[in-house]
């Protein structure tokens, strides 16, 4: 026990005295979550809108006026034919074009039914969703007004069309995604380097000739990074709840439990890398290329797994982040409890057992 405590203290000294690395480890999640947050949550304000209306009547004018007077939109152009739409987008004159069908107000008055088409520039998919959502709401509220004044049920159906990016990928997934990535980066990369560094510096020899048990060496390497990762988890949570307003809809305790499990899996992964490599550079490359890229691309953080070719789906099954991100989405966004993520918990537990067993087996007690 004394052995273990002395060694854990030493590991904390290593981390606390390496100020640069520690600043990176603490600031990285903050910077990433803020960057991702502002890249993906677009505030809709004074967005430029063009209007295509073939007739000039009271209903159309009323709707246009309502849109223009909202703080979200500025009507900057009135166009008169479909041909002009392309030009509007190409010259970036507007982000959204609102098209009233021919005889809009007549249709509305006689059939009780009329159509508006919203064409959005979806190069920025999240912004485009927001625009169409806001406009649809404005139209819906106008509809309410009309319903109030007459007995006839009027129905205006906005038809939403996304240009350039019809699938609308990656909406508000970033908090689970960044959690999945940061935890893995800090845990796996830093643990793997921490052990390889001892090999490179020659201190590993001293540890190996000492009666220090391998399991103690491993546990003490893990402890400080576990604490640091738990701290980072707390930072990300605070930022996402209070700054980015992504609420934790489900059970917070379940979220903490799943996260701690995932941190453990990542640490075990780092250990495995460290037992297989002999230089810090190799460990960096393996954890950088071998972990970062699959996590970014195959975990469902950016691209939905369902849309991937079957082979890539299989590969994504062995990426721990995939299961973690899925569990976090279920708990945090969908608001479900631990019973809905039993599969993910089972997979992550299984992974951690396999990884720890393999790394302990592979941890070399002798120098060869």
């Amino acid at each position, binding site marked *: 026990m*004394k052995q273990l405590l002395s060694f854990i203290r030493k590991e904390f000294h*290593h981390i606390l005295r390496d100020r640069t690395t520690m600043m990176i480890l603490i600031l990285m999640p903050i910077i990433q979550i803020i960057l991702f947050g502002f890249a993906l949550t677009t505030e809709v304000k004074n967005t430029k809108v063009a209007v295509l209306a073939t007739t000039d009547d009271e209903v159309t004018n009323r709707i246009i006026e309502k849109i223009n007077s909202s703080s979200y939109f500025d009507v900057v152009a009135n166009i008169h034919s479909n041909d002009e739409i392309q030009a509007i987008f190409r010259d970036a004159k507007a982000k959204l074009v609102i098209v009233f069908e021919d005889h809009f107000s007549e249709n509305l008055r006689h059939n009780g039914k009329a159509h508006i088409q919203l064409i959005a520039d979806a190069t920025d998919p999240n912004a485009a969703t927001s625009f169409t959502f806001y406009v649809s709401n404005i139209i819906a509220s106008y509809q309410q007004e009309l319903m109030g004044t007459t007995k006839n049920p009027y129905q205006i159906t906005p038809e939403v069309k996304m240009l350039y990016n019809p699938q609308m990928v990656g909406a508000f997934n970033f908090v689970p995604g960044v959690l999945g990535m940061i935890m893995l980066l800090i845990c796996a990369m830093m643990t793997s380097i921490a052990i390889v560094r001892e090999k490179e510096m020659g201190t590993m020899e*001293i540890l190996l000739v000492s009666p220090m048990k391998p399991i103690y060496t491993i546990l003490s390497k893990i402890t400080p990074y576990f604490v640091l990762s738990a701290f980072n988890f707390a930072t990300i949570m605070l930022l996402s709840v209070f700054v980015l307003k992504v609420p934790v809809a489900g059970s917070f305790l379940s979220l903490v439990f799943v996260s701690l499990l995932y941190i453990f899996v990542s640490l075990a992964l780092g250990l495995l890398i460290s037992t297989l490599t002999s230089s810090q550079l190799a460990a960096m490359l393996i954890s950088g290329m071998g972990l970062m890229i699959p996590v970014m691309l195959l975990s469902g953080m950016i691209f939905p797994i369902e849309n991937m070719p079957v082979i890539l789906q299989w590969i994504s099954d062995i990426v721990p982040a995939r299961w973690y991100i899925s569990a976090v989405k279920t708990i945090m966004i969908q608001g479900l409890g631990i019973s809905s993520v039993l599969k993910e918990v089972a997979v992550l537990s299984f992974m951690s057992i396999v990884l720890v067993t393999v790394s302990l087996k592979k941890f070399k007690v002798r*120098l060869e």
Partner: protein
Amino acid sequence: MKLIFFTCQNSPFRGLGGRDTINNMEKVIVAESLTKRFGHFTAVDHISFEVEKGEIFGFLGANGAGKTTAMRMLCGLSKQTSGKGVVAGFDIASQPELVKRNIGYMSQKFSLYGDLKVWENIELFGGIYGMTDEQIKLKTDELMIKLNFEEERNKLVSSLPLGFKQKLAFSVAIFHNPRVVFLDEPTGGVDPITRRKFWELIYDATAHGITVFVTTHYMDEAEYCDRVSIMVDGRIEALDSPANLKKQYQAKNMDEVFQQLARKAKRVDS
């Protein structure tokens, strides 16, 4: 705090090659036909020797002669292909954990933690070897006075000059009072005067009953040993006290002895 008085003028240099009487002829290291092969390459080829308690045993050889490999087998860092080794009374193959508890080790790569303070390094290794806080504190105070290190106590090890680091590394290696300490080229990169000061610490350790097994390629250091073995191409070509070796090879100094033997080497340094 109680002040501990420690005589600094102890451990005068003993006559070269002349051993004090060893009352207790206890064997601390026994190697019998110890062999290590890497594939077809035989790094250590059936070496046999015995080292007695309190002896300073020099292990010489050109680079690539197999010294480090032999030493690693004795410390339990590497497993022998064949042969037998007993260190501090325990078999190196079947009782490596007991061997580890009874030896100290200092590698040629300077091997303390540079980002830990002097006392923190001592405390760490004391803890690893299962010493109590009380023991560690008492011995640390003693050691700081002995090494005249009181000012450096709170400094990071990385800020110390190499000679200081080596002294500290040696002191840490024998801090837990091992029966035998293995030193792998402990004084690389320092001048002869610093080396001599380092050897005073070695003599002091043997005076306390610690056996010293040291590899070196400095011939002035070889002269300080009680007995010297010279390895050539994985085999021990000569083993005796420096005085006897010089007589046998009709050489003025150990360097000439070494040159005569090393010339036989067929193995090219890799």
